[in-house]
């Protein structure tokens, strides 16, 4: 029979109970890759439905994070008695934009499987494509904010206040507070690990939401608390030593610390932050993916 099938060229599918907790990984990944256009089209279609593809939609993608950042800047500046300069502003928006990426991915991604409804019930396909589609969408929403960041950074470098630096002999030079540096290009590999970290969390939440449908109600509170506990609205070195001790439990501490150092200050951070970011990225991706895969066969029954 299989010989016939081979001659006629029809695929033979075998469905058997899963022996271990996971589906066979190599065929799964192949299948995932073969059907990647589903995730791409789903992401495109949902961006169309959200009018992200229109001029005003695009404009909103630029204005919204900017307004958000301005509100936080005002707030923090008032609390600090108006002492914050452009270097803090760039630190703040760089952190906020990445945090928005994380928050968007999580809130959209958490619902990705439960919203897949009829498609999940009626079609056999690698369901990992559903959270990946939302990851694509949130990445495309993140990109324009990096454009704003570059423009703002350039503007502040050119027009921003200057500081006088004097050497021992008393000779002084005017220096820009901000200046471009090749180190900022390292933001790209750093973001790759941030993406892995967020993708792992998102797939984990997507699977968890099948079992607890109300996670999406708790998420906004959880992410907001997380934002306040992370060095976005303040600098990491402003924290009291006893607080920093707890930050070893907060993945965003090294991740955003690294991100801020690289993209806002253009300085090379400690090796420990690099190691932690890489480890959190790979670890989160592996754990999230494995949890999703181990649960995936259950989704069509639970929805």
């Amino acid at each position, binding site marked *: *029979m299989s*010989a*016939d*099938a081979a*001659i*006629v*060229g*029809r*695929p*033979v*599918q*075998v*469905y*058997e*109970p*899963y022996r271990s907790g996971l589906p066979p990984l190599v065929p799964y990944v192949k299948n995932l890759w*073969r*059907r990647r*256009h*589903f995730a791409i*089209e*789903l992401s495109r*279609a*949902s961006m*169309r*439905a959200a009018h992200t593809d229109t001029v005003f939609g695009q404009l909103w993608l630029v204005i919204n994070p900017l307004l958000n950042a301005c509100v936080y800047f005002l707030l923090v500046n008032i609390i600090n008695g108006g002492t914050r300069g452009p270097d803090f502003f760039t630190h703040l928006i760089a952190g906020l934009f990445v945090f928005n990426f994380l928050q968007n991915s999580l809130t959209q991604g958490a619902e990705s499987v439960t*919203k*897949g*409804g*009829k*498609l*999940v*019930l*009626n*079609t*056999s*396909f690698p369901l990992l*494509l559903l959270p990946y589609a939302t990851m694509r969408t949130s990445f495309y929403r993140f990109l324009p904010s990096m454009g704003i960041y570059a423009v703002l950074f350039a503007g502040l470098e050119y027009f921003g206040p200057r500081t006088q630096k004097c050497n021992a002999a008393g000779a002084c030079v005017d220096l820009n507070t901000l200046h471009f540096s090749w180190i900022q290009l390292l933001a790209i590999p750093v973001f790759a690990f941030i993406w892995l970290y967020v993708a792992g969390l998102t797939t984990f939440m997507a699977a968890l939401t099948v*079992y*607890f*449908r*109300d*996670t999406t109600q*708790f998420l906004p509170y959880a992410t907001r608390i997380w934002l306040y506990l992370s060095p976005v609205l303040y600098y990491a070195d402003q924290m009291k030593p006893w607080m920093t001790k707890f930050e070893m439990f907060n993945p965003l501490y090294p991740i955003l610390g690294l991100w801020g150092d690289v993209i806002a200050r253009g300085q090379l951070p400690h090796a420990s932050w690099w190691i932690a970011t890489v480890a959190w990225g790979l670890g989160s991706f592996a754990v999230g993916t494995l949890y999703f895969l181990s649960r995936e*066969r259950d989704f*069509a*029954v*639970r929805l």
Partner: protein
Amino acid sequence: MSEEDEVIITPSQRTVVDEVAVSVQDVCITYRTTFEKRPTLKQAVMRAGRGKRQVKTVEAVKNVSFDVPRGTVLGIIGHNGAGKSTLMRAIAGIIPPTAGRIEVTGRTSTLLALGVGFNPDLTGLENVLLGGLAAGLSKEEVETRFDEIAAFADIGDFIELPMRTYSSGMAARLAFAVSMHMDPDILLIDEALSTGDAAFKEKATAKLRELVDNSSTMLLISHALATVRSMCNEVIWLDHGQMKMRGEPDAVLDTYIEAMHVKKTAAVMNDF
């Protein structure tokens, strides 16, 4: 087998070969679910206080085995909850069997009770494209079928509108049109003919009949016993997850109808 190896078979000659399209081997499917329709964290926390969690085990399909040769139209009948939909979804690869093995040769297309249109905010065409891509077709393959699908569904400009604007009949038309035009090797239909108005039902039945005459392979779940009788070459009767009977449509259907009448009177006498 060794003789057959010499023969080169082209797809157009496929009916010549007596090939098995679907092979179901001693399959059991057990559901383990909780009672909550929409489980939440809140419930879980509240339950943790009382320390109990009700889990229900349902043996939906028990030790079912059968082969479907290519070109067969197999009807599956049985009472509500007999396990028909469960079995069909396992053949479609949507839920894995708890025990046993299912082999499917060729690409399946499903027209299950739930229909297409998973995302109400997207248009009909977008939903069709996404359904096709998920099922493993390429974008070009789906797009070349757009016109045929739109023409067959015959829902006019609604095809360009978000599916939340559709009536259930319109969604059913689109679902039917999609599954008919995906050129599957095996078509799986679960109670999908009962929706839609009379005119569309006629059109759908005609289309199905055309497929039957072209000796397509099809698995058909239907409560319309007349449809089953006229379309199927073979019928399986599932009863509480077990295969009660299998054979010629007339023989199985007559026994089934008789049993239903007996059961009805028995129920009246015993259950109350």
